[in-house]
């Protein structure tokens, strides 16, 4: 377990976040922090509000109320500065398939203002075993290879905050294992905070320092993924997840 650095403000602070679409409340009174070097799992059944939360952190969705601070910077007020400290990879946001791996990394590297970009791209190609795909169009890659390119793009600007929405969903077990180790190492060495969503509870137990369990837009439980199930009388994290998904009222998930 990697202890989160406490001397500086959290890399992500979400305060009383709320998103309403007319009658539908997608996220309600959500508050949590992600510390430096900490990997936090954001868990919940489909429709729990995980992606809505990530979209609000990324500034592509305006919260109805509440505040998101990245590295102490308010996303709503200083969007550019906050997003320069953030990056993300998500299965539903593949990079343009008509550009090669290298072209995509260069394109986004310029947008993120990455210094010494060519060297950074070469390092990432090596890190994610993408060298042989350097000049291959992303649309021609397998879904697992595309995921690795997305992760390389997500690391371009060495973001203090990294948002990963099911980053290993399309990877084979061996590659997924490699990616998990790589991301853990990056969090440890570069001190970035990571918000990680996944439906693979084994992976969450292996990777995350802390988990947040959401249902129906509300944060119901949070804690250490290894001890949280026992604290709530569940056999495993998966068992706890299923109970939260099926009986959210038991855990304070009203509405």
């Amino acid at each position, binding site marked *: 377990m990697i202890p989160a650095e406490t001397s500086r403000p959290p890399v992500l602070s979400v305060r009383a976040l709320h998103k309403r679409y007319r009658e539908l409340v997608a996220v309600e009174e959500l508050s949590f922090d992600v510390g430096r070097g900490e990997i936090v799992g954001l868990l919940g059944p489909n429709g729990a509000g995980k992606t809505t939360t990530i979209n609000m952190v990324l500034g592509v*969705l305006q919260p109805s109320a509440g505040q998101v601070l990245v590295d102490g910077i308010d996303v709503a007020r200083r969007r550019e*500065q906050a*997003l320069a400290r953030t990056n993300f990879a998500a299965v539903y946001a593949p990079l343009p398939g008509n550009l090669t791996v290298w072209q995509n990394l260069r394109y*986004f590297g*310029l*947008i993120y203002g990455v210094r010494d970009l060519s060297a950074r791209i070469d390092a990432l190609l090596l890190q994610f075993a993408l060298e042989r795909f350097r000049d291959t169009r992303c649309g021609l890659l397998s879904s697992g290879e595309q995921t690795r390119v997305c992760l390389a793009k997500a690391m371009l600007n060495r973001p203090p905050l990294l948002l990963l929405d099911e980053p290993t969903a399309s990877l084979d077990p061996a590659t997924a294992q490699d990616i998990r180790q790589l991301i853990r190492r990056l969090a440890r060495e570069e001190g970035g905070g990571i918000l990680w969503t996944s439906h693979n509870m084994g992976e969450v137990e292996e990777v995350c320092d802390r988990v947040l369990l959401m249902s129906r837009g509300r944060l119901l439980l949070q804690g250490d993924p290894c001890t949280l199930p026992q604290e709530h009388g569940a056999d495993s994290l998966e068992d706890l997840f299923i109970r939260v998904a099926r009986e959210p009222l038991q855990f304070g998930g009203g509405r």
Partner: protein
Amino acid sequence: MKWRAVAGVVLRQVYLMRSSPTRVLPLFAWVAVDIVLWGFFTRWLNAAGPSGIDFVPQLLGAVLLWDFFGRVMQGVTTAFFEDLWSRNFLNVFATPLTISEYVSGLVVTSTAASMLGLAVMLLLASAGFGLSFFAYGILLLPFLLVLFLFGIALGIVASAIVLRYGPASEWLVWPLPAVLSPFAAVFYPLSTLPEWMQAISRLMPPSYVFEGMRAVVAGQGVSWPMLLGGLALALLQVFLAGWLFARVHRHAVNSGLLARYSAESVN
């Protein structure tokens, strides 16, 4: 304004062009076809009867200038559509890129692409059909500038429409130049139009250009206040178009449309 970020947006288009002949060809092929078609038509008109009018600078010049405007507009919209077609909005708009940087990238791309089209048109029209741009003199530059600015403004407005109303609205924006052409008085004097159409024409900078062009060809002096008025109007419209795009983007972020763009509507 971070110029490296703007360069990133432009570079993406360069990469696409470099690897795709189907993207390069439309930059000059359709305008070349237009010049050839209208070139022969004006040649026939000149030969058909002693009307005393030289149709080459009158008609072929008008076609060239109008096609230039159309290429500028399409340069902006096509660059924007590349993000639409590759479902790249989330990747682009979740970066530190500002709206002004993004739009500037589209404008720079369009400028480069339309200059290529213009060069091909100038070459074809002068070498193939004897259109001399000395006939317009130095006025060619303000003519092109006004049309360029109006093309940029309309391209940004068209992109805003697609951002607001979803991918299907792409089909609304392609015919925009054709819809506007009757009001722009490309081929006939403004006075030919009924009063209500003239009122709309006066809001369109190209009408000042084509009126000026006809005056020059007829050997009359161009009205500089009118041309400068057209330029000021075009500049104002570029500013308003940028404001509209930023406002539509804000709406897309507030409503959740940007995050769920493939749904086309959040209602």
